[in-house]
């Protein structure tokens, strides 16, 4: 049965005020299209979780969607600060609650959530001040060796949104390039939205099943949104828009400039298709050059 819906319908049905929301993707495949629709639908009091809040959550924080941020690295990769985040955290009192881990800690939280375990053990955090400011980082004594291990609690989001290169109508999603923590986040989640560059017949998925990272059986909605990850990127489709990430430093530094950006590029467009139509130069500037993989035989 087809799960293909518009982004507007997917967000309206699956993302509610007060939800724990994850839009994952480590630099690669970050669904800005979904975040922009969440902002347009004016969701409030969300707990936003991601390893790297990135420009995407900076925009959602600025738009007033977030009550809390759960994260491990809050910078603008390669360009500077996330100023909406910094303003919220540096104000007196702070206007955004935070719960902070390291990358390994966040990955472990998703791993526990995906395996439906209450926590995940890791050999980490010795000598750091992180457990002192985050009471959810605890420890356990190994019942076999007696050694102390750090623990982090499972993270089971209400909804996880991932961007993939392609999927079929049932949501069997294939990703290549950097895989991040999307598989764990999706399996940990109560609801899953998959956003894709390309909708393909199931025969394409079945011809290369090793490339499927999220099976349709855990997917609630499929949204077809070409260029839906811009200014993030999709390997084999388009490059990261590093110039935009650099521009974000100046845009986000001034609240008025940031508000004007949201007015023009989020509230001021109906959907991702219009966002792309208004930037006709994107294709010439960022479309990926081909670097084809070899083929393998799945025969027996």
């Amino acid at each position, binding site marked *: 049965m087809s799960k293909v819906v518009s982004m507007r319908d997917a967000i309206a049905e699956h993302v509610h005020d007060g939800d724990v929301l994850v839009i994952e993707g*480590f*630099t*690669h495949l970050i669904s800005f299209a979904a975040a922009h629709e969440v902002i347009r639908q004016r969701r409030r009091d969300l707990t936003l979780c991601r*390893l*790297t809040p990135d420009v995407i959550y900076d925009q959602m924080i600025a738009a007033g969607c977030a009550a809390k941020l759960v*994260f*491990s*690295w*809050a*910078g603008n*990769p*390669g*360009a*500077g*600060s996330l100023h909406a*985040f*910094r303003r919220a*955290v*540096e104000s*007196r*009192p*702070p206007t955004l609650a935070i719960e*902070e*881990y*390291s*990358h*390994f800690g966040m*990955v*472990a939280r*998703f*791993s526990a959530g995906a395996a439906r375990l209450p926590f995940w053990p*890791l*050999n*980490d*955090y*010795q*000598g*750091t*001040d*992180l457990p002192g*400011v985050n009471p959810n980082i605890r420890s356990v004594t190994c019942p076999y060796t007696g*050694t*102390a291990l750090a623990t982090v609690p499972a993270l089971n989001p209400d909804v996880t949104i991932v961007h993939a290169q392609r999927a079929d109508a049932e949501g069997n999603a294939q990703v*290549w*390039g*950097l*895989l*991040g*923590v*999307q*598989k*764990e986040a999706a399996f940990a989640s109560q609801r899953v939205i998959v956003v894709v560059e390309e909708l393909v017949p199931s025969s394409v998925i079945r011809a290369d099943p090793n490339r499927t990272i999220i099976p349709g059986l855990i997917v609630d909605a499929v949204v077809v949104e070409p260029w839906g990850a811009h200014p993030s*990127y999709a*390997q084999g489709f388009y*490059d*990261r828009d*590093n110039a935009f*990430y650099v521009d974000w430093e100046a845009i986000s530094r001034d609240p008025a400039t940031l508000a004007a950006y949201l007015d023009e590029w989020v509230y001021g467009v109906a959907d991702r298709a219009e966002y792309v139509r208004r930037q006709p130069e994107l294709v010439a500037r960022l479309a*990926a050059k081909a*670097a084809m993989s070899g083929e393998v035989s799945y025969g027996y």
Partner: protein
Amino acid sequence: MGYAPGEIMACVAARELHDGEVVFVGIGLPNVACNLARATHAPGLVLIYESGAIGAQPARLPVSIGDPSLVTGSLMLCGMADVFQLFLQNGRIEVGFLGGAQVDRWGNINTTVIGDYASPKVRLPGSGGAAEIAIHARRTLIIARLHPRAFPAQVDFITSPGHRARGGTRAELGIPGAGPTRVITDKAILAANAASGELELAALYPGVTVEEVRRGVGWELVVRDALDEVMPPSVAELRLLRETLDPGGVPRVTGWYRGRVMRCGRGSVGCEAATEMIGNGAK
């Protein structure tokens, strides 16, 4: 031939890497250093990025740690659960690069906050993978620019533990890796005292005085009796940096310090905020 501080830092970092070693690479200066090492004495260096690229051979300087150029031509791509569990926690990483807004006398690094955690003066990006790199890499190299505010006696927040964190040694805390063996600055190399773990002045760059280094450090810096000599960048190294490895972009990664130069490694984007903080004075 004249050279920029970033250029000699890249050369010094490259010379610290041995052929065949497995390196957890950061963006910016460590990336340039690793590629310089690969182009000179260490063609078999294995570059691993926390984004999941194993054996990457980036054809351009990656702006971010998840740059698509890390993917094309890699030996392996894996999810981040695999990176942290199967590579880092497994003990496969021989060298890790770290940087930070603050580095203290024990080599502890702060990339989290300046001031109080609950009401910070400056909020920095946080750990990223830095805490676990500091704990699990068999040794780490710290890259940081000397400044008394960047090298306080004690960091405001320990994001990544050095040789002595809150009184405990690495052995006492059960930390597997050896910790920071070298702190590569823009004027000198600091190295930990084998017994106490305190950072000492181990080598001066050409033309730098002990006094200049002391002025850049916020504690009474111990100077070793015999200081190692740091060779300036060779003509061949500079040519590689300027013509091939870091030719353009504004500014060049290894060019003069202008914010971006200090983007070196995950935690070290904190350097940038620190540079900014230092530039603006404490707010």
